[in-house]
């Protein structure tokens, strides 16, 4: 009886935590704080548990929402705080920068590398005062990193497990646009995970496009 009581308690506890988790997730999106950015639409916003293409049932990212035990980093809508509040909205929509200007290795290598501090400084050596106080604070942070000669410790948003090999160059050459996996990054003031990036989600696209679905294409 004691055992069954404990089990019941644990179940209740778990359910309570799960619902708490959903509320947390909504709360964690500090949209209110980030007002002032133009043209924000709720692209890639969390839409519910089961809206992730035709993934197999065991591929659903339900597990990822158990915050107590599991990883929000693997869930759609994961939106970590970055060391600098860099806005893609400003850079893409307002300044009309192409993705490839900063992430230039995406077409040349398996990795779409984050730009170096010097790449940021090509513009920001000139652009230091924007007139918007919130922005200037962030630019100041960049200048500090530059002066100290340090790298910026960005937080990874699209985390892939080590046993998956994803080749950016191959996908871009194959006609897959950046947005198909990363969402409309240009409309995100804070970058968030726009797709679960579960295997079922990958396979669906591979099937549609007639790409190889051999395990050895990605797992080795």
């Amino acid at each position, binding site marked *: 009886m004691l055992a*069954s009581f404990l089990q019941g308690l644990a*179940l209740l506890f778990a359910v309570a935590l799960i619902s708490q988790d959903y509320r947390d997730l909504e709360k964690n999106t500090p949209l209110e704080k980030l007002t002032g950015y133009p043209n924000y639409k709720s692209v890639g916003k969390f839409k519910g548990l089961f809206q992730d293409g035709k993934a197999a049932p065991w591929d659903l990212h339900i597990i990822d929402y*158990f915050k107590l*035990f599991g990883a929000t980093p693997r869930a759609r809508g994961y939106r970590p705080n970055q060391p600098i509040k860099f806005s893609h909205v400003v850079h893409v929509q307002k300044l009309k920068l192409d993705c490839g200007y900063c992430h230039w290795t995406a077409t040349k290598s398996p990795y779409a*590398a984050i730009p*170096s501090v010097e790449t940021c400084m090509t513009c920001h050596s000139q652009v230091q005062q924007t007139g918007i106080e919130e922005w200037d604070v962030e630019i100041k942070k960049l200048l500090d990193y530059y002066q100290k000669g340090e790298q910026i*410790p960005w937080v990874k948003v699209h985390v892939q497990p*080590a046993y998956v090999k994803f080749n950016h160059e191959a996908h871009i050459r194959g006609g897959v646009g950046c947005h198909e996996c990363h969402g409309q990054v240009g409309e995100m003031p804070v970058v968030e995970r726009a797709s679960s990036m579960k295997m079922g989600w990958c396979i669906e696209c591979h099937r549609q496009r007639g790409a190889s679905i051999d395990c*050895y294409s990605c797992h*080795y």
Partner: protein
Amino acid sequence: MLFKINKKSASTRRDFLTSAALFSLAGCADNKLELIHPHFKDPEYAIPGNSVYYATLCTECQAGCGLLAETKEGRVIKVEGNPDHPINKGKTCALGQSLPQAHYDPNRVREPIEKTQLNDSKGNPVFSFNPLQLNDALSKFATKIKNASKILWISKELDSFSSLYVQEFCKKFNINFITYEFFNYEHVQKACKRVFDVDALPEYDLSSADIIVSFGAEFLEYWLNPVKFSRDWAFRRKNAQVFHCQIEPRQTLTGAKADLWLCIKPHTEIYFALALLKAIQKLKNSPLPVEILSYLNKLEIEDLISKTDIPSHFLHSLANKLVMASSPVVLGGGVQARGEHAETLEVACLLINYCLEAVGKTIDFSSGVKCSSDFASLDKALSEFDFSDPKAVLILSGNIEPWLPTRLSISEKAKQKQASIIGFFEILNTTAKLCDLILPVDNCLETFSAQVRGGLVTLGQPAMLRLYKSRHISEYLTAVQNALLNNQDSNVDVYNLFENYLRKSFNLNSQEIKKAQEVGFFPLAKSKIKPKLAIKSFSIGAAKDLDDAKLKLLPLGTVKAWDGRGENRGWLHELHDPISLVSWDCWIELHPKTAKKLRLKNKDYVKLYNSSGYIEGIVVINPLMKPGTVGVPLGITSGEESLSFAKIVKWANANKLFDLKESSLLASSFKIEKTTPRKQVYQTQVTTDEHGRDLIKVKVLKSDYSELKSEVKDEKHHHHGVNLYEQRKKPMFKWGLSVDLAICTGCSACVVACYAENNIPVVGPRIVAQGRRMSWITIHQYTKNLPDNSVRRVFVPLMCQQCGNAPCEPVCPVYATYHNEEGLNAMIYNRCVGTRYCANNCVYKVRRFNWFEYEFPDSLKLQLNPDVTKRGVGVMEKCNFCIQRINEVKFRAKKEGRLPRDGEIQTACQQSCPTGAIVFGNLLDESSLVSQTVKSERGWKLLDDMVNTQPAVTYLADLKFQT
């Protein structure tokens, strides 16, 4: 009742399972916050994720092989041979392959260190090593040089660039500079000087030789230039165009590949050589000097040959074969032949070559390669060096101490020393620990180097930035020189020094230097030397030490240890010696008769000791050695406690058992005693017997290769064509591999290459002893009795056979292993749940299970290949034909709108194989090299006729001439 379960209110088993499942599912996901650290500044030439290759030089031995160091994100992950380099043509040996582990060695000296002596509570001296600032260390070094009364510098053989600066420095400050190598070729050089008056080592060209006679020279393992020799030998061997005879007391790897292996009494090679010289002289009537002729006339062939224990008909047939051959070559002695007549043996061999008119054809002196090792002056200088003089300074570079005989041992002499010892070291090894001041030097992958060999200057350049606060030896010396001579303007940057060296020595301008560094080498103008016979007479003294009753100690070189230089590399320790099959541990080889006499059994633990040293190890019974001899492997490990990998095994350095005199390695009388056995036996293969099944094929040729072509193939395939699986409709590729056992020398370069490429963990001796070694490719050894009454050791590199009808596939409950469209037996790690059914069902036993989470030491993590997953605990793994390389090339080809070319995809084992025994390619492409080799008359598939596995790996039978 308290414990009565109310069925209505109790949660059911189903509920429990649900909650358990929820908990465990939640535990599956990982919760780590991952950071990205982008570059501060983008490098100009490197794109993150793509490899950058640097042409550099291997300074592990003096052969001067060119390397390509593969770097990713600024760190070296693998070294390959430089395909354009004329010496090694893209190939490497096991030692060269292990170079990244030397670079990322966890025990690198990270900054200048000063040793201070303290006394513990009992009054025993305790040493502590304290880090120093570079400038302090340099000023200490400078003051010691300034105030020194006498300076002696003992060094291993340095590359040409370093030695130029060292020698200049030594000249300026009146330093006695002596070079010494344990595997040296002093006796060969002295013999060349005596016979032809040429002060150089001979360069042998085996690519045209049709008969090779070797007196124990291990030219396929570590003798002179093993990678080049292996390639040239294999080129002739593949089609049975060369007859190879090896004469030695215990069969080496080279001896195992010989057509005729003659087991000679130790240190009597000289008598056989003299008899051969006499027989050939008689047949050829060569114009030898009168005194030599009269000396030869005095000798009786039967008399000489009786001392060697070899039947005389072998001598006569060998002499006939040599005389009939169009380009014969006779190689000198190996390590086992380094007795008191080592030099005379070389003289006799050179004279035989002269009689056979091989000099100028297969032997060449024009590249002027020299061996700078000089034991005689080392002996003299070290005996005279006064350790009690506080002003005397001894400088050491290279791990000299384990190479020195006990009577010269520095550690013994330095116990009560006043003199100071300064050392230049990469790792904190036995010799480094003797020093009062240790200056860290660069590994060859992070600095410049140059080697003049084979008519070429091979240039080394850094493939990555320095890991620690180390410097090149020339930088230290120039800085100290500047401080002592008050030169202010001279630049001490290693690149400037290197450029100066190239300008001074070879008159290159900066454009030529840049071009040479890109290619990795540049040719030197050769001066053609036509050696003339300069020797007037020679003779050997009366036979000493030929007493049969006394046991004789044989020094054995191994591909994994050489002279002990790779003692702190896990890859090399984990490698088993292909003959004794022992990894990590030391062993003692005995003939069955000798073992019976000594009352020892296989796998007994014994201690072997004499007045100068001892080793402990397992007894290995080896029928292919002379009865009455005891074989001990050289340089297995010093057991040094400051070294992560060396300390795992006990002291087992057989170098110390021998006394060196000039070029001879001789041991005084010794004893063998049984000791307490260790808990485990670090031997990796249970038996080398086939148990009556004809698993491994050896073809014995009567006359030449053409007889194989007329031979009718023995079709024993019972189940031909039976396949349980649906066949693929229109595949593009079917990957296949062929391994030519006729030219596989068991050198183990492929094994180390596989470790490096595929992030295979080093598991340590305890787990190896349990049979849980992780290597994806292993060299198996089988002993076969051939129809011509000879015993043949065959080395079989065994990797996953990628069976077409794989036994591992149907038993996997989670579909983690399956057959893919390209004929690969795929193993998907993230699907694997670790039932190990596949490994149990594998016929070849090539699947490896991760029983533990194997951690890499921190610095070695830098070597890991980012293209390959590091497998975690509970996952099965195996060879996958380097799928990462296949995918990379396939993508590159797709980008360029073509199909992968034949030979474009190279597996790691194939790329390193010095003989080219391993060929990989597409079996569906009729013109590919592998489709041709698998059709060979010698081809067969391992175990296929018994179990119908239809492997993608084809073995080509070993070849041997009937003798």
